[in-house]
């Protein structure tokens, strides 16, 4: 059930490593281009995200006063490492996940949360007040969307009867209409939760450019910023793959992968373009009032359905 390529290749080229980095950048480009089209303008050219990363990597990394240098330099690396590791358990590009074991859904989700925690730590590390504010907002947001997001992704896991992503993926391939029909709320909560996780508008209060410059990443320039940036893009790709696998009927081949993830990206781009930025207290209020209740209701419905033998 594991993909039969050597582990080193899996780590460095496919599906972790270079593949996810470059495809992540491509997805960022698609996202920006879609938003630009929705705003009636031309977006960036195809090589823009790559050019951004190359330019940022070439810049000097300035370590500000008052930080602990080891933490300052290690956090971006840790974030990227976590995200790349998470890629190993997800069915990337329609292939089987490279490594799979029981309970790897939880591990993947926690690895995806690692990047948010790293950004929060990075913000608190410096004494710059913008970073501290940004870190506070990042962690506050983490506490608000994490629970509904997890609960939403647990829906298909419950009906599949397993916490292993490859099992859930196989189940989804067989019953995809059923999943979407019985768990539309989970789908919506998961999609919007992914937007919160990636800090896309309207949930970009932690990175609100007009209020706190760049939030937790204000003090980073050069390598650290490039690594955080790339980690974000990779997280986008992994999140989309997860949701497509669980709710849109699994991914059997690369064409399906492209179609389903790009379709989800289109929906996310439309949602990004439609709303103003929510204040952090409004975000927390919304998630704890609507998000959690909806996710819990969905789980309840699933449990009932499962117990009466429909699923």
């Amino acid at each position: 059930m594991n993909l039969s390529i050597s582990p080193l290749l899996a780590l460095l080229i496919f599906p972790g490593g270079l593949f996810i980095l470059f495809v992540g950048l491509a997805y960022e480009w698609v996202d920006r281009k879609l938003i630009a089209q929705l705003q009636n303008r031309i977006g960036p050219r195809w090589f823009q995200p790559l050019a951004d990363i190359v330019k940022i990597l070439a810049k000097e990394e300035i370590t500000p006063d008052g930080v602990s240098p080891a933490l300052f330099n290690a956090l971006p690396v840790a974030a990227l490492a976590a995200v790349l590791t998470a890629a190993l358990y997800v069915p990337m590009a329609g292939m089987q996940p490279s490594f799979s074991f029981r309970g790897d859904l939880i591990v993947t989700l926690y690895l995806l949360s690692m990047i948010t925690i790293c950004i929060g730590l990075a913000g608190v590390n410096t004494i710059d007040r913008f970073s501290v504010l940004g870190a506070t907002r990042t962690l506050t947001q983490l506490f608000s969307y994490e629970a509904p997001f997890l609960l939403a992704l647990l829906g298909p896991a419950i009906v599949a009867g397993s916490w292993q992503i490859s099992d859930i993926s196989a189940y989804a391939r067989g019953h995809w209409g059923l999943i979407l029909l019985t768990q539309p709320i989970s789908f919506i909560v998961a999609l919007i939760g992914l937007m919160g996780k990636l800090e896309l508008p309207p949930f970009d209060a932690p990175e609100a450019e007009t209020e706190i410059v760049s939030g937790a990443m204000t003090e980073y320039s050069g390598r650290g910023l490039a690594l955080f940036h790339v980690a974000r893009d990779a997280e986008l790709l992994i999140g989309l793959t997860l949701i497509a696998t669980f709710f849109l009927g699994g991914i059997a081949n690369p064409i399906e992968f492209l179609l389903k993830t790009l379709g989800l990206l289109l929906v996310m781009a439309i949602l990004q373009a439609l709303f103003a930025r929510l204040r952090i207290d409004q975000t927390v209020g919304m998630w704890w009032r609507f998000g959690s209740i909806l996710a819990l209701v969905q789980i309840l419905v699933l449990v009932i359905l499962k117990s009466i033998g429909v699923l």
Partner: protein
Amino acid sequence: MANQTKTEKFIIPIGPQHPALKEPGHFEFTVDGEIVTGATARLGYVHRGIEKGCEERNYIQDLYLLERICGICSHVHATAYALGVEKLANVTVTPRAQAIRQVVAELERIHSHMLWLGVAAHEAGFETLFMYSWRDRETVMDLLEGLTGNRVHYSANVLGGVKCDITPEQRDAILRGLDYLDERMQYYMNVVTSDETFLGRTRGVGVLTYEQAETLGSVGPTARASGVTRDIRLESPYLVYSEFPVKVILDDGCDLLARFVVRIKELFESSRVIRLIVDNLPAGELTVRMPRRIPENEAVSRVEAPRGELFYYLKSNGTDMPERIKVRTPSICNWSSVVVTAIGHKLADIPMILAGIDPCFSCSDRSVQICSASGGVSKIWTWEQLRQYGIEYYR
């Protein structure tokens, strides 16, 4: 600025370099968590010595210098100055020229309010509204380019009249452009007053009560959104506002949403007045002969800029260069309202409150008299001394 007091209070500096501000200005907000407990403002970063420069140039050159105090309200500055000089020289301008000046002024008001709508939406994180309103702003800029010859800094005025005439083709173009803009403005009015995410950022934010607006001396749409009737176009009509009057737009909301509503409604009013004027343009010449040497006199001219009341004081001394020109722009009056209303709000509301008064930092910096720190005699610098000081300061 790096104050971290024992009581866990932060001072957040906004500016002089900050993505929220389009121009440099320094604000210090004392926050407790996310709630603002105190605010101070400091300006002066864009001082260019324009008032002093006016004293070294003749009246015609000053027209273009004063036009460049601000990019968005450039025509209003030039109009106020031209009106003031015509008062000094006791010259009456033809009605046709006044009407064309008014058309350009109202078009500029449309331009300024649409720009403001985009910028305020950007501060709220609503990028889509920003992009769409700036796309539609291109329509009014094209109209102005066809009419006057430039998109910004129209230079439509000369002392004694205007440079450009409104031909029938331009009249048609203006009417077509206004039709398109009216439809778009109705759409934006719907968006601003009904979109729940945007209302969450503007309703109840930045409340400036009627009494506060009166006491702090707010002008322009900021005051009108708190119910204060202050509009120079009605109080002391200039140009042809007595024949083509404007209705004053008031709102009782007192908050940020009210300011949005007031400005968008003013757009409808401007559009109506422009249509009326271009259909009923009085016939006549465009310019009147103005003397080059203006006799000794003093004059005051007040006009309604998009941001509020613009006040010019001019003094002539018989030569062809003015003795003194004093400019008081509307943004100066509105700063105190920011400092007062910011208290009690969350940090995320601060850029919105700042944007709500439509700040124009370039307009706000005036200072000519330098008093020595030891309390000695204050002296007025000459142009050369001011230039030398600037050169030394930046070396």
